[in-house]
């Protein structure tokens, strides 16, 4: 297991720089992601989630921590493992489950599927399933902000495996040279699909150990502690908004589930999952809230409200119709249609 250099400072109390309201929001967000994705898995086992799906169970602190540090107008660029990031920006659970279930109430009415969740009104500028493709795209959105004097930050999430594709390196150099307001977030969950990242990477920390090649600070954080993630995000966003250029943040984490669908993840050594489950981000955070004196009832209420949202969303999706066939040919081109000839 990789060493974690940065830990939440203990004992500062509930009303430190993060504060009670934000901590409750971070907790709620993480529980919501967990419940929604666990439900997605259950629905997959019932054959109600079709196609594929890539869960972030165990990685919720990263999605929650970054999303809670973003403000309206900031842009998220996600991967196929993007349910959590999409939900964390406020997209309703029903819209995400509906897309996974390929129903008409889905976020893109079934035209995109689980790997391409997009909700521009929430700042979710797409989920990309070609490894690394969205890093340059995030640079372009950041370029627009720089050019127009807009203050938003483009935040790009990807995995450890993505650091070995060319687009990663092109984007990092490009962003650094152009000093773009973009934040690259590597979720190092120790595996690409099935192969340990250490087996295929020349350095120990696949993202952070490359940072110096692009003149960037080497940042490795505990990705399972939402406070640590939130603070790292705030710092990087402030730098971006100040016109001081990009950041690359490597978050150490672990996915509790397999890579996709029903992957049993047999390639993992015995005991590894159990060790990481001791550091389950939601467990860590629930404990922190208690330690800071948040009442059990407040926590239980959040849990119950989230459960209700997910239950309601599930029922709505089960009742939703399939998408109509007439959307097959819409929105190929900007005129709304698909005509390639007269």
């Amino acid at each position, binding site marked *: 297991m990789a060493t974690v250099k940065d830990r939440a400072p203990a004992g500062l109390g509930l009303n430190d720089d993060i504060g009670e309201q934000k901590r409750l929001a971070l907790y709620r967000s993480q529980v919501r992601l967990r419940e929604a994705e666990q439900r997605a898995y259950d629905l997959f086992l019932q054959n109600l989630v079709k196609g594929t799906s890539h869960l972030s169970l165990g990685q919720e602190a990263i999605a929650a921590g970054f999303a809670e540090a973003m403000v309206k107008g900031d842009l998220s660029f996600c991967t196929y493992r993007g349910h959590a990031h999409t939900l964390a920006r406020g997209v309703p659970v029903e819209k995400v489950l509906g897309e996974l279930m390929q129903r008409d109430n889905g976020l*893109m009415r079934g035209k995109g599927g689980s790997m391409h969740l997009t909700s521009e009104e929430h700042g979710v500028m797409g989920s990309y399933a*070609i490894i690394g493709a969205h890093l340059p795209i995030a640079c372009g*959105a950041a370029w627009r902000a720089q050019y127009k004097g807009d203050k938003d930050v483009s935040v790009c999430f990807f995995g450890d495996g993505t650091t070995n594709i060319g687009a990663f390196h092109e*984007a990092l150099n*490009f962003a650094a040279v152009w000093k773009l307001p973009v934040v690259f977030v590597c979720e190092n969950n120790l595996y690409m699909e099935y192969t340990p990242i250490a087996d295929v990477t020349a350095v120990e920390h696949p993202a952070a150990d490359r940072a110096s090649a692009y003149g960037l600070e080497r940042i490795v954080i505990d990705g399972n502690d939402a406070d640590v993630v939130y603070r790292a995000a705030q710092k990087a966003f402030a730098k971006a908004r100040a016109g001081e250029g990009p950041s690359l943040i490597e978050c150490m984490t672990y996915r509790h589930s397999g890579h996709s669908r029903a992957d049993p993840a047999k390639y993992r050594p015995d005991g590894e999952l159990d060790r990481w489950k001791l550091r389950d981000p939601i467990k860590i955070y629930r404990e922190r809230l208690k330690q800071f004196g948040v009442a059990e009832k407040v926590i239980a209420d959040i849990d119950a409200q989230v459960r209700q949202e997910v239950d309601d969303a599930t029922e709505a999706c089960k009742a939703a119709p399939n998408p109509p066939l007439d959307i097959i040919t819409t929105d190929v081109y*900007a005129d709304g249609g698909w*005509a390639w000839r007269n």
Partner: protein
Amino acid sequence: MAELSYRDAVIRGIAQEMARDPDVVFLGEDVAKAGGVFKATVGLYEQFGPLRVRDTPISEQAILGAAMGAAMTGLKPIAEIMFSDFFAVCFDYIANEFPKSRYMSNGQTKCPLVVRTGNGAGSRFGAQHSQSVENWCMMIPGLKVVAPSTPLDVIGLLAAAVRDPDPVIFLEHKSLYATKGEVPDGEIVDTLGTAKIVRPGKDTTIIALALMVPRALEAAEKLKAEHGIDAEVVDVRSLVPLDTQTILGSVAKTHRLFTVEENPRLCGWGAEIVSIVADEAFYDLDGPPVRITTPHIPLPAADILEDAVLPTPQRIAETVRRCLES
């Protein structure tokens, strides 16, 4: 009215659009301070400044990805890929990202950008710097694909491409950069998806694109002078959208069809046109449609070898004559 080279028409087209709309920005390798390897962007950096005309690293994926991100969020970028052959190293954006984001997002995502590139043979650069890749682009739903043959069309179609809300691949022919043509003063804006009858005729239709247009025109003059065959030459100009009405109309008049394609034979754009004509105008035809193409080989570098494989006016005229007389 002024005589302008195809190269200078590129400069004028970009400048016209950048002057009109501050959201139009331009990026590529060696395009700003150096004015481009084909000198087709000289003066733009001086005119529009370093924020709008930007040199990039040798990072084709970053160039196209950044153009897309900028387009999605409000700019109208023009990106240059130096040689169209290099599409192969950034094809993800051309094949998977630009053309599919709108569809996959159920209409949420926009991608109004133009990729300009130097396409085609004639410079004796060999198989990785001389290809005609229009057929690589034409096959992808969601893209528009344009290839002008004259300075006037360069300006008008480039303006139309920049103003178009969809991603447009704009193929400039390297061997046409030095050619000249008359261009009126003032703003010029054309329409995508329109073919042009560049030489009316009654005996046969010859459909061509980019560098093949002047060659088809030369062949038509030869056919007229030497054999009394009056060929109609249609410049397709835009592969997507495709102006099938002009093509079908011409075939209905002449009853014969030839395509002249620089791309290697398999799945060349002419195959699609022949298939459409066969489907929809079969009984208008007095003989089989014939495709005149570069053979299905990588392009050789040596002038004498390259000249032997591209369709020439002689080969076009000879093929048409033989088929019409048989």
